[in-house]
């Protein structure tokens, strides 16, 4: 683990312009990241990377350390220990070169209150070297956002739309989105998913922190789950879903057989009239063999979704 101050001072720093990343190349490489706020250990030594072109979902409950990690990556926070390389550069020393290649939606969104949406975009445009007015108008129309209103007059959802415009207006290599759909209605959440997919199709990489598991399930190629500042799981969405228990629902012609809760691999069995529900905690073959010998009138085996995986994971950790 390298102290950030010393790491920054090392003579092995690459040149500021590390050039565009090639497909599959690591855009972000985090090693041994630790961040303490006094006695509070917000991030406790995490390692992960993001490869070019992927959408990485960053999951975890409040206080898991997601925003702290993102703010360290952006050099808004200085890590207690560990090393971060973004585009092969050091955020501490090469911040402007790095931030020119990414856009960011903060989790706790606060915008300058006296500016209109248009003025804010122009201000950011001056800092980023201009913007495409046609793209601005197109995004405003898609997000149904009135850019002539002052940001303090905007609802939470409309402020979030404006932040999304700031993220999608510039052709960034990396989009860092921290709870980007918080406060958006379902239609706009759908539009957001479309925008993320379009950005990925255009070659962008997306680092998506979210509480909305369905949104991550629909968009992310890979997921990292954080709990109390540590990574507790990572893999593709399919891999995480595969770890979750399937849910089984069975209807019988008569009363539910008395031995159902003794069948190997079934857990959390509940019985209601002629219907039983359970979760599949082991191989499904012995369960099916048992049921084949029973007067079953209906059977439903539900695929677990990311939420099930997430809840299972947290129950295990707890």
């Amino acid at each position, binding site marked *: 683990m390298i102290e950030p101050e010393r790491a920054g001072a090392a003579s092995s720093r690459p040149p500021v312009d590390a050039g565009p990343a090639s497909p599959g190349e690591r855009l972000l490489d985090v090693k041994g990241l630790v961040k303490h706020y006094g006695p509070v250990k917000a991030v406790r030594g995490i390692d992960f990377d993001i490869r070019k072109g992927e959408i990485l979902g960053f999951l975890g409950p409040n206080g898991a350390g997601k*925003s702290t990690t993102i*703010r360290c990556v*952006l050099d*808004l*926070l*200085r890590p207690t220990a560990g090393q971060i390389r973004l585009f092969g550069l050091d955020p501490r020393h090469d*911040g*402007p*070169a790095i*931030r*020119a290649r990414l*856009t*960011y939606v*903060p989790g*706790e*969104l*606060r*915008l*300058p*209150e*006296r500016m209109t949406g248009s003025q*804010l975009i122009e*201000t*950011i445009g*001056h*800092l*980023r*070297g201009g913007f495409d007015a046609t793209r601005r108008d197109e995004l405003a129309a898609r997000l149904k956002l009135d850019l002539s209103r002052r940001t303090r007059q905007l609802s939470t959802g409309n402020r979030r739309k404006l*932040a999304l415009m*700031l993220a999608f207006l510039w052709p960034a290599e990396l989009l860092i989105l921290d709870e980007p759909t918080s406060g958006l209605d379902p239609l706009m959440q759908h539009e957001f998913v479309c925008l993320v997919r379009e950005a990925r199709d255009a070659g962008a990489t997306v680092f998506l922190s979210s509480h909305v598991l369905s949104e991550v399930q629909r968009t992310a190629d890979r997921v990292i789950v954080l709990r109390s500042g540590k990574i507790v799981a990572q893999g593709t969405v399919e891999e995480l879903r595969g770890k979750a228990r399937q849910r089984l629902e069975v209807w019988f012609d008569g009363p539910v057989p008395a031995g159902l809760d003794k069948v190997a691999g079934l857990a959390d069995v509940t019985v209601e009239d002629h219907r039983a529900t359970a979760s599949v905690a082991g191989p499904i073959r012995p369960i099916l063999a048992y049921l084949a010998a029973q007067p079953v009138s209906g059977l439903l085996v539900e695929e677990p979704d990311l939420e099930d995986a997430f809840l299972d994971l947290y129950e295990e950790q707890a």
Partner: protein
Amino acid sequence: MNARNLELVLGPVRAIMRAALIWAVCIAAIVFVTVAVWPAFKGNDSIDQAMNNLPSGVVQAFGLEGFGTPAGFLRGNLYDFFVPLLMAGAAVGFANSLTSSEEDGGRLEVILAQPVTRQAIFAGRVIAALVWVAVVTVVISIVQFGSDAVFDLQIGADRLLATLLLCGLLAGFTAGLSFAVAGLIGKPSIVLGVGLFVAVGGCIVAALFPLSSSLADFAHVSPWDWAFAGNPLSNATEAWRYLALGVPAVALAAFGVWAFGRRDVSAA
């Protein structure tokens, strides 16, 4: 200056324009109204006699010496206390609202995520605040000179300019101090507390400490003493007084820029 750097200054300039103009107009109005009553004091010996009957400490503390003269009138009514204190308060407010208040409110994060250095962002805000301190000083100066002409208050332009410049530099000093604290800590309550404590406390120290033989020497720690102990409305001002305020103002602001680049930025 390219468009990016210009935006880093003009954005903050626009952000506090309304507040700065309100401060400028209010202080200028106080100046105008005060000078407007000068004709009632002009040539009135009984005012001087009344002041002479006050304890010498009170006269000294409140700058009431020569109250019947143009210099004494302006000093006692405006430049011994009100105008410098209001300008210093405004400067602390400008510095706070452009830095720690923005940071604490989370509004700086969108700007900090752009391809500019933290130091450049903070420096742009320092320049914006100092520009408005200068504008406020100029507005007050224009109103002061205009009022003097209208109400026939005859005082040397060089003395008046020196006094106004010292007021502006004192405000710049408190702004610089506020920027230093904002760069180091970024908590609005602390920035305002330290800035206003030095502004108000410095005024009290400079006014009251000279009345006590045991405290008199400590009056020199106050920036108000550096600015006004030489009575600039009546006497020529030594060059070191400008430097004593201006150099630390720049140094403190530069320290704030440096410190802001080395710490965590608060989240909302």
